């Protein structure tokens, strides 16, 4: 299009001989310049009505596909038909009743009798508590002392003068 534009405006440009940003760097022969312009210029005007009709067609198709809910009138159902439908739907729903979903429980409640037995049982051993407490303390201390042990120099000097 840029090429076409420059070609079309070439004649009307008053500063024809003055080099500007639209001036061709290479001289294009007249014949070559002429060849694309007629097809471009000829095809442009008849295309317009086509585009218009195509746009109209798209608009029409879209309008037919859209359901305007607001414009629709209120949907009324007679009492008889309503009760009949209720009966039919309930009958269908009853026949196609799904089995009740199995409840997923990761942690189930302990029955009260069993929970009493557990709670009355011996408490956790103090030695166990000491074991885990000391272990975690020692581990935390050991982890806080984690250091990178380098066996070679971390910075290697290059022989830069």
């Amino acid at each position: 299009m840029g090429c076409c534009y420059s070609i079309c405006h070439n004649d009307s440009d008053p500063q024809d001989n003055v080099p500007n940003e639209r001036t061709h760097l290479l001289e294009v022969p007249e014949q070559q310049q002429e060849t694309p312009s007629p097809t471009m210029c000829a095809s442009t005007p008849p295309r317009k009505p086509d585009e218009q009709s195509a746009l109209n067609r798209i608009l029409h198709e879209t309008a037919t596909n859209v359901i305007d809910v607001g414009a629709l009138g209120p949907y009324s159902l007679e009492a008889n038909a309503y009760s009949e439908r209720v009966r039919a739907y309930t009958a269908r729903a009853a026949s196609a009743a799904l089995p009740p979903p199995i409840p997923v429980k990761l942690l189930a409640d302990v029955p009260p009798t069993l929970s009493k037995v557990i709670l009355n049982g011996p408490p956790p051993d103090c030695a166990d508590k000491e074991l885990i407490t000391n272990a975690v303390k020692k581990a935390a201390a050991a982890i806080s002392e984690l250091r990178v042990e380098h066996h070679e120099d971390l910075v290697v000097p290059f022989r830069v003068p």
Partner: protein
Amino acid sequence: MEKELDKVVEEIMLTPKVTGCIFADHQGLCLAAKGTAHVDSAGILVAISEQACKLQPNLKPPTIYLESDDKMCLIQRHGTITGGIFKHKE
């Protein structure tokens, strides 16, 4: 680098009836694991201790005992480190 931590783990494993031992950081990254303790359980261990800490946030982190008929698991948090010890019951 982690010689100290390895030493602590070895020491714990020498304790009678202990079958496994694991340590993880606050994000659930396993720092050390030995015996029956699996590396993958580090995240779960940390999550359990975090939930238990929410019970009484002002107090020290609680010690958690998970028991089955013949085994038990002890979980405790200290700072950012969470430790777990697996052992046989009496």
